[in-house]
Every structure is written in C-alpha cells, then in structure tokens.
C-alpha cells in the first residue's frame, strides 16, 4: 500500500515535494533569483524525467484516485510544458521579486491538474479543479503594478467562481438523480432522464468554460492579454491540456450513455467555437490576444476529435495537445522574449523582424505554421488526425466546415508571417538577446514541431497507451 502510494502518485508527490522546497526557501533566508531559477528549472526537469520511470497503473483511496499509463503520459506532457515555460520566461522571471511564490502557485495549479487527471470521483474532480484554477488567478495578477494584469485576474477569478457555481449546481443535481459521485458507478445509473440531462448540461458548461468553448469563452482573451506571458502560456497550454484530458475521460467513461447528446452538443459548439475563434482572431493586433482567439479556434478542432467518441479521438487529442504544447509555447516564447526586452506586443511591431532576428522569426513562423496545420510541421498531423477521428462519425458538412476553418485560420496566421517576413518597417525590433535557456527551449520546441509528426512512433506510443 505504501509503496503503491509512492509509485502511483509519484508525479503528484514530486510536485508536492518541490512546492515544499520552495516554501522552505521562501520561509528561510531568500535566495537570489539567479541561483533560485536554475534550481527550479532543475527540479522541474527532474519532475519531468521521473514521469518516465516506475510506471504502474492502479487505484488508490477507494477509487478517488486512479492512474494509468496514459494519465502518466498526459501528466508528463504538462510537466514538460511547465519546464519549457520556466526556460522560456527566464527574462521575466529573473526580474520578478516573488519568484518563489510564482512557482509555488504555478506548481500548485499543476498539482491540481495532476489530481484532476487522475480523479475518480466528482468530489476529487471539483477539488482539483479549484486547486488548478485559483492559483492561476492569483498569478495572473503577478504584474502587480499593471492595470491590465489585475483586471485579468479579476475577470478570471470571478468568471471561474461563477462557473464553479454552475458546475457544483450540476453536480448536486446529478447526485440527487443518481446518488453517487463516483466515476465508475455513475455510467450504470445514467438513463437520460431530464434531470440528469439538466445536470449534465451544467457540468458540460463548466468544462466548456475551462476549455473556452464558445459561448463560454469570453473571459479567455481578456485574461490572456492582461496576464504576464508566462501565465498566459501556462493557461493556454497546460491548463487547457489538462482540462481537455479530463473532459475526454468524463465524456468517454462517465457520460458514455449520453453519447448521443454530447455528440450533438460537441458538433454545434465546435462549429461555433471554430468560427467565432477564427473571426475574432482575424481582427486582433495584440499578439497575446491574437493567440488567445487562435487557441479558441484550436479548441474547436479538439472538439472535432473528441466528438468521435472513439479511442482514435482520444489518442488524436492527446497527440494534438502534445504538439500544441510545442507550437504554442514556441509562439509565446518568442512573444515573451520580444515583449520582455522591448515591450512590444502587437503584430505591427513585428514588422520587418526577419531582418534583425532571423532565428526568432523562423521559430515563430514554424510555430504558426504548426498551429495552422501546415505540413511538414507536426501541427498538420495533429489536426489531420483530429479531423480524421471526427470524420469517422460526422457528416460531411461538419468536416467541410472544419476543413474550411483551417483555411480561415491560415489567413490570420499568415498575417503574422507576412508582418515578420514581408512588411517593411521604420523601426523594426532591434536584435533580441536570447538567453541560453530560452534558446534551448525554443530549439526544443522547434525540434518537437518538426519531428513529432514525421517520427510516427510518438503517435504509435500514444495509441498503445490508449489501448
């Protein structure tokens, strides 16, 4: 039992352990950022690496917590993303007065996500969801003196509190209708009665809120724009990924009897999400806000994959999230480097950037192409598999809309590419000094974007995990 606990919960335990180290460091005599940051990076790397060892599947606490190889892999993706963020945002982090707290909160959120992925019970799920949300709201406010940062945090905490209220209301009704909150016991008790449906829709809405599905997405762009880039990237990549994973588990495992309902919901919402996300992304100038809407559109694609309701969908989503981590973080990383050193954050500012910063330009371009789903980047494979998974069930119209949305999204991604490569500018961004760790992270991202698709064994590995 004890060894089980240690091994099955190893990732959670490691994160907890890191959190405690940080706490002690903070309580004791503070360490300078210059030494603290590499230490944290090392710890995060350890966390990531440990994910690959001592893998075991099992159930703990009477079903409250369970873990499978797939879940471990999903958590690894999140760990990797966190590690990459810690590398990419060194510039901003070094300047911060509250480095330890920042990671403390961020890792708490990560811990929440780990538990969320492994949750076997609605209570567990709710608790970990809150653990994953509230700290993020706090760190969204980390640019303490910036008006936008506090506005973003306010919007985040109020919206998510509201959505928790909705979620809880749904859970309470579900409990009333079935008498259980256990994931394993629930499916058998679901019969599609109106009350259950009602409860399910409330639950679904809460998930939709976290995933920023239209029309529950409205907070996303404002929070992304206002929050520091480190937080934005964490939100857009790690938090989204975690929610997507648990969302699939919930739909596929728990709410399987209601498949017909959620399939139709997904189709409707996915079309709306892709369209609205794309249409809003078209008109954005602020790069972070632009990425926010683009990530909303990406979620629309994830929904296409999820809608398949088959293992293929699950593997496609996991694969896509993995690719999305690299692509989005590369884009955010470039934005962070530029913003941190020049304070420029709009697409117009990027004009003529290629002349001064070819490396960053190429990384940005590759990242955007991957997001747009252009081969040979991995994004192409990710998107294609999502659509293929979705097409196994969907009607032609749905797939045509999804495919055409890829075209619209290309339009705005190309807008950035055009600014970077083609437009002339009076004052292009000066040569950016790229810290070594950020460069490493960007290279990792670039390699990931290029190789993840071509090396098909990564996908095969995910498939083997799903089975």
């Amino acid at each position, binding site marked *: 039992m004890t060894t089980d606990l240690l091994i099955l919960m190893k990732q959670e335990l490691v994160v907890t352990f890191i959190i405690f180290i940080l706490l002690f460091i903070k309580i004791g005599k503070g360490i300078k950022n210059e030494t603290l940051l590499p230490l944290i990076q090392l710890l995060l790397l350890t966390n990531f690496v440990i994910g690959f060892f001592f893998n075991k599947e099992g159930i703990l606490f009477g079903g409250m917590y369970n873990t499978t190889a797939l879940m471990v892999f999903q958590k690894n993706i999140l760990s990797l993303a966190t590690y990459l963020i810690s590398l990419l945002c060194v510039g901003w982090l070094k300047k911060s007065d509250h480095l330890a707290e920042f990671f403390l909160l961020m890792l708490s959120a990560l811990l929440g996500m780990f538990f969320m992925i492994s949750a076997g019970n609605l209570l567990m799920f709710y608790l970990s969801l809150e653990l994953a949300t509230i700290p993020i709201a706090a760190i969204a406010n980390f640019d303490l003196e910036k008006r936008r940062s506090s506005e973003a945090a306010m919007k985040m905490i109020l919206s998510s509190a509201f959505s928790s209220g909705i979620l809880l209301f749904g859970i309470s009704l579900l409990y009333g209708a079935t008498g259980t909150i256990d994931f394993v016991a629930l499916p058998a008790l679901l019969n599609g009665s109106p009350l259950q449906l009602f409860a399910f829709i409330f639950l679904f809405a809460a998930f939709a809120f976290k995933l920023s599905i239209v029309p529950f997405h409205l907070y996303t762009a404002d929070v992304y724009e206002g929050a520091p880039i480190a937080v934005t990237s964490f939100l857009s990549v790690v938090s989204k990924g975690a929610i997507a994973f648990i969302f699939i588990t919930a739909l596929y495992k728990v709410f399987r009897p209601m498949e017909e309902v959620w399939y139709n919901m997904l189709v409707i919402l996915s079309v709306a999400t892709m369209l609205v996300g794309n249409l809003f992304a078209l008109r954005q100038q602020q790069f972070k806000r632009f990425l926010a809407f683009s990530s909303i559109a990406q979620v629309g694609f994830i929904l296409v994959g999820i809608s398949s309701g088959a293992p293929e969908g699950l593997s496609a989503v996991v694969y896509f999230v993995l690719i999305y981590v690299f692509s989005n973080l590369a884009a955010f990383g470039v934005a962070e480097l530029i913003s941190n050193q020049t304070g420029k954050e709009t697409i117009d500012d990027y004009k003529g950037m290629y002349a001064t910063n070819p490396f960053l330009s190429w990384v940005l371009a590759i990242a955007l192409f991957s997001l747009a789903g252009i081969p040979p980047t991995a994004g192409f494979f990710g998107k294609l598999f999502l659509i293929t998974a979705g097409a196994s069930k969907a009607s032609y119209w749905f797939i045509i809309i999804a495919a*055409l949305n890829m075209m619209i999204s290309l339009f705005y991604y190309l807008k950035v590419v055009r600014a970077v490569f083609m437009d002339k500018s009076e004052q292009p961004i000066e040569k950016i000094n790229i810290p070594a760790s950020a460069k490493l992270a960007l290279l990792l991202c670039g390699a990931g974007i290029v190789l993840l698709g071509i090396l*098909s064994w990564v996908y095969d590995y995910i498939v083997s995990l799903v089975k």
Partner: protein
Amino acid sequence: MNLLLLLGIPLLTAVLVLMSRNQQQVKWVSFAGASVQLILSLALYYYFQKASASGATGMLFQQTYSWFPTWGINFHVGVDGIALAMILLTAFVVLAGVLVSWNVEKMTKEFYFLLILLSFGAYGFFISLDLFILFFFLEIAVIPKYLLIGIWGSGKKEYSANKLALMLMGGSALVLVGLLGVYFSGEERTFDLIKLSQLHLSPLTQKICFPLLFIGFGVFTALFPFHTWVPDGHSSAPTAGSMFLAGISMKLGGYGCLRVATFMMPDAAHQYAPYIIVLSSIAILYGAFATMMQKDLKYINAYSSISHCGFVLLGIGMLTKTALTGAVMQMVSHGLMTALFFAVIGMVYQRTHTRQVNEMGGLMKSMPFITTILFIVGLCSLGLPGLSGFVAEMTVFMGAWQNPGMFYRIATIAACMSIVVTAVYILRAIGKTAMGPIKEEFKNLPDASWNEKLAAGVLLAGILAIGLAPFWLNDLITPGTEIIINKLTGK
C-alpha cells in the same frame, strides 16, 4: 531504382543550402542538386523503360513503409508512366528555375531553400501511392509559394500571396474532406491508392467525394471559376516562383484530378463528366478571351495558363484513353512551356524593367536570343507542330472526338476554337514586344547570360523532345492511362 532518392536529393540539397556560407555556394549547391535530380529522373526513366520492356506493368519501384499504422497510413511510393512524366517535368522545371534565379540578391539562401522545398513537395506528390502522404506533399508546397511570392514578388504581392495561399488551402481542405469520405467508406481503413482503387466505393460516396476531390484539386489547376489565384499569383511571383507555380504546382491539381478523383471513382467520373467538360470548355475559351485583353506579359501567360489547363481538365472529362493521355501530355507540355515563358518574361523584365507590352517593341534587335525563345514558346503555346503544345492539344482533341454525341462535339469544337484566339493574343504579344520599331532606351540591352541560356536550353530541350518525337512520351503515358480507362470502363 529506389524512389526515395528522389526525395533524398532535394532534402539533402535543402540542408546543404542552409549550411552554405555565401550566395555563390548556395547557388552552386542548388544547381548541383537540381542537376543531380534531373539525371536521377532520366535514370529513372531508363530503368522504368527497362522494367517495362521486361514486362512489368502498373506501378513500378514500389516501396512501402508503415508510418501511422493506426490510421492505415503507409509511406507507399511507386511510379507509373504518368507519374514518371510528371517527375521528368518537375526535374526540368526545377533546374531551369534554379538557373534563372541566379541573380536573386535578396535573401538568396532562403529563396533557394524554398524553391527546393517546393520541388520536394512536388516530387513527393507524384510518387505517392498513399492518399495521406499525397495530401501531405500537396500541402507542403503551399507555404513556400506564399513566401516566394510575398517576399520576392512584385506588384501587389501580399494580396496575391494571400489569395493564392488561401485558395489553395481551400482547395486542399475540400480534398481532405473527399479523402476522408473515401477513407471511411471502404471496407478497410486504408489510404492506399491501389487498395482503394480495387474496392468498389459505394455510389453515394462517389457522388459526394468526387466533386469534393475534383474541385479541390481543380483549384490547383485553375478550374473555372476557381482560377482567380492564377493571374494574380503568377504575375506577382518572382520568375522562378511563377515557373514553379505554373509549371509544377498547377500540375499537382491535374494529376490529383486524374489519379485520385477519376481513377478511384469511375461511376462518379461518368456522372460528373458533363459538368467537367462544360467548365473546362468555358475555362479554355474564357481564359483565351480574357488573355486577349491583357497588357502585362505575365498576365498574358497566366490567363493563357487558365486556358491551357482547361485542356487538361477537358481531357480528363472526356474519359477516353486518348483524351486522358492527351491530358497528361498537356500537363507536361504546358509545364515546360509556361515555365519557359515565365523565364523569358523574367529575362525581358529584368532588362527593360517593364512587363507592359505597349511599352516595349523591337526587342529582337537588342536581344535576339531571348526573343527567339519568346517566339518559340509563344508558338508552342499556340500549338504549332514540332513543339509540345501541338502534340498535347491534338491528342486531347482526338480523344475528345472519340465520344459520339453532339454535346461532346460542341465542347471539342469550342476548345478547338481557342487555338485561333491563342494565336491572336500570342502574336499580339510577340508582335508588340519582339517586333516593331525598337525604342532608344532598349537598343543596348544585353542578351541572355550563360545561366539564362542554359535554363532556356533545358526547357527547350524538353519542349522539342516532345514536339518532335512525341511517341516516347505517348508510349510512356499510355499504359498508365490504360489502367485508368480500364477501371473506368469496368474492365
């Protein structure tokens, strides 16, 4: 012969280009790569002939590697005569494209890298026997085009680049849906072209997927009314970009229409053939008439490409063996011809700094070589015997006429009429640029340099090889079209 070499050489070249230290190195590396690739293609032709002589038919040199087994995706490559013809075309155009870009000064390395990436996509596309990798390579080629036009182009380049990229992506989106429809309708989850062609797809699937695939690929090959990217894209692109666009990229669409849409869905092909014929006849005549009004040389060639690519689609729509052969020939011929045309336009533009036909005149005096090439390519475009255009067009006409029925007759005659209109606009363009009194400022312009001569020579060799001795191309293509036609007639 190992077909992967065809992919390996461009990749290697691309890597070497990226590693090059200066412009000279970049150019020579690209030149060497393109030359090796041409030799390789010719070698492939030799081995293919040898294999065919010993009785091998169908797809030769097949190789299969499992890529994404979950989805039934294999890296399956192989060539038949049709694919080989397209590969040869690509090799010729790429070499010429590399040569005419010799004096690109701006971001040379990136330029050549993108060119080679583009060619990589084309080679991959033509050897693919798996629909997934076919689609993969189809899309690879889009972004290099966008960047080539957007960065090195002229005129309203951003607009054109955007339009091109979006329309092509829209086309490939439709292709994707069509492919998925096919993928999920068979008894087996496979993207393998050969396996799929052996299955009988349900009529409903065919009815839905055929138009998706055909229109999707049709966008690439300027199917009316989805052709508007062609004039803008071609005219804004840098010389080599236009050459690749018209010479290679538009052929991807034609090849896809033939190999994917028509081959896999014979019932639907019969069902939709009248629509294809109507659209392509419109494209042929309408493109020709629209060309007549153009004053910019690049627009002239771009619009004429719409007209000429109409022949490809017409040939496919006619669904006879001869017509299909003609369609493939027209692809090869048009590819060589239009690439050469753009190359010449580029040479002229570089010297006169104008592309308006009204502003030129008498250039034959100062640059006899370039204008001679312009003449030849113009004549090829209007279908003069001895040059490739004639052979291809006549084969299409011959094939088209084999269909009895007034509808086919009228469509064929309409298409035939374009040869007159073509003569009008080509002679007008040539008359205004090469002939007539020369302007003072053009009197001392230099004639072609060695690289331009070589580039023109390479393409001209191809044009003449087909125009003077078409039988080799015919013999190469016919077995391939025979398989398609047998499938179409249910044999």
